């Protein structure tokens, strides 16, 4: 009876599938996992220090997800189950706290901006070269993304934003901005100095002097929706006072003021 064997086989696959479905819909284990949303610029030091944190907190597992800080904050508002947000803009963290979605933010680190460009672009003689003929596409995220706001403010203060704006290729976040130049999609980009160190092809073509540097303050917040507030606080202090600090500094982040 071939028809029956087919049905049996179908029924078997359905049963196996149902078991899978039950697994898929089951809630992840609570409490043993911390979900950290972090600015993409923090990726390398966080990845480097994650093992160390897990070694000293064997009952915890770190999950790191990266994105533009404003996008991560929007996800928190929409109910994303993040435990900690590490924002590249302290104002974004403060706003979440003001909305009652996060505890008091803690200062995490500072950063700087630098202009990078593809290898064939000559070093700039002045920032005005960004509006010159050699550079046709400049990667800068939208104003909502922290590095996008910092870069646009710096351009505006130099009186260049209007002339540069038509050449801006909007990117999704800090690391995508560097990748745009590394992958050849843009001629130049305004990035964090910490990201510029990781460039594969892009080179620094203009150092922005201290006096012109915007105030780039990173902040860490424990989110109200966390089911493991103690563990979340432990991770934040691991980054600020603990062994995580050395990883941040090795990656080029300055300590908070």
């Amino acid at each position: 009876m071939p028809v029956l064997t087919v049905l049996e086989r179908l029924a078997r696959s359905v049963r196996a599938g149902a078991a899978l479905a039950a697994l898929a819909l089951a809630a992840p284990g609570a409490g043993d996992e911390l979900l950290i949303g972090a600015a993409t610029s923090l990726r390398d030091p966080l990845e480097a220090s994650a093992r160390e944190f897990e070694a000293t907190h064997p009952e915890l597992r770190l999950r790191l997800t990266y994105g533009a800080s404003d996008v991560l904050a929007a996800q928190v508002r929409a109910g994303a189950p993040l435990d900690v947000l590490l924002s590249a803009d302290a104002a974004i963290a403060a706003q979440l706290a003001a909305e009652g979605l996060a505890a008091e933010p803690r200062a995490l680190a500072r950063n700087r901006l630098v202009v990078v460009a593809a290898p064939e672009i000559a070093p700039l003689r002045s920032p005005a070269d960004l509006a010159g003929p050699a550079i046709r596409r400049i990667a800068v995220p939208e104003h909502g993304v922290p590095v996008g706001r910092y870069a646009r403010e710096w351009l505006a203060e130099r009186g260049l934003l209007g002339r540069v704006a038509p050449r801006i290729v909007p990117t999704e976040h800090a690391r995508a901005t560097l990748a745009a130049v590394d992958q050849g999609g843009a001629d130049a980009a305004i990035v964090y100095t910490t990201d510029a160190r990781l460039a594969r092809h892009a080179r620094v073509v203009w150092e922005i002097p201290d006096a012109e540097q915007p105030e780039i303050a990173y902040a860490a917040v424990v989110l109200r929706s966390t089911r493991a507030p103690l563990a979340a606080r432990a991770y934040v202090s691991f980054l600020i006072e603990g062994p995580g600090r050395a990883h941040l500094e090795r990656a080029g982040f300055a300590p908070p003021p």
Partner: protein
Amino acid sequence: MTGEIVWITLQVGAAATLLAAPPAIALGYVLARREFRAKPWVQAGVALPMVLPPVAVGLGLLLLLGHRGPLGPLWRALDVQLVFTRAAAVLAAAVVGFPLLVRACEQAFAEVDPRLERVARSLGAGAARVFFRVTLPLASRGVLYGVVLAFTRALGEFGATAIVAGILPGRTETLALGIYARIQLGDDREALILCAASFALALGAMLGAEIFLRRRTSPP
């Protein structure tokens, strides 16, 4: 890491297919057997999730499932959080794969000779018995093909899933989402590894289906 992402992708794909299959098979049967005035509208409506931009489907799901959408008060009252969960990833993949399944089932059922069903009825079988013992087995090849199509579509689902489930490692990060996130981060090596895994999974699913169907149809 790759293993876990593959495992989540398989779970989401399988759960989405199982969720979509029963209603899709029922609807496919109705569309194959019944004529009614609104039929073209139903067919076009069913196809919509397949032809709309997936991010638009994602936005629609976000409105339906989110605490800020029109059903928000309901979800809040039930204390149910669906957005950014694996359940949301399953729903998104199921919605996008549903039209493929309905279409395949409709065609498969249309090819079954209705006289065979009438003979079974005349011999005293009830409607359910006729469907499960005559119609479905005869249409099983086409139905299974639809199931495989929906499953593989679910494996690759990106746009709707990214909106409604986010890219949360260990929870909702599937292969398609993982590839995108790593390209954005400039991590081409890991992106390529995940692409290779995607390739293997898709090829495996299609190959498995072809071999299964061949065994089914070869003479005993």
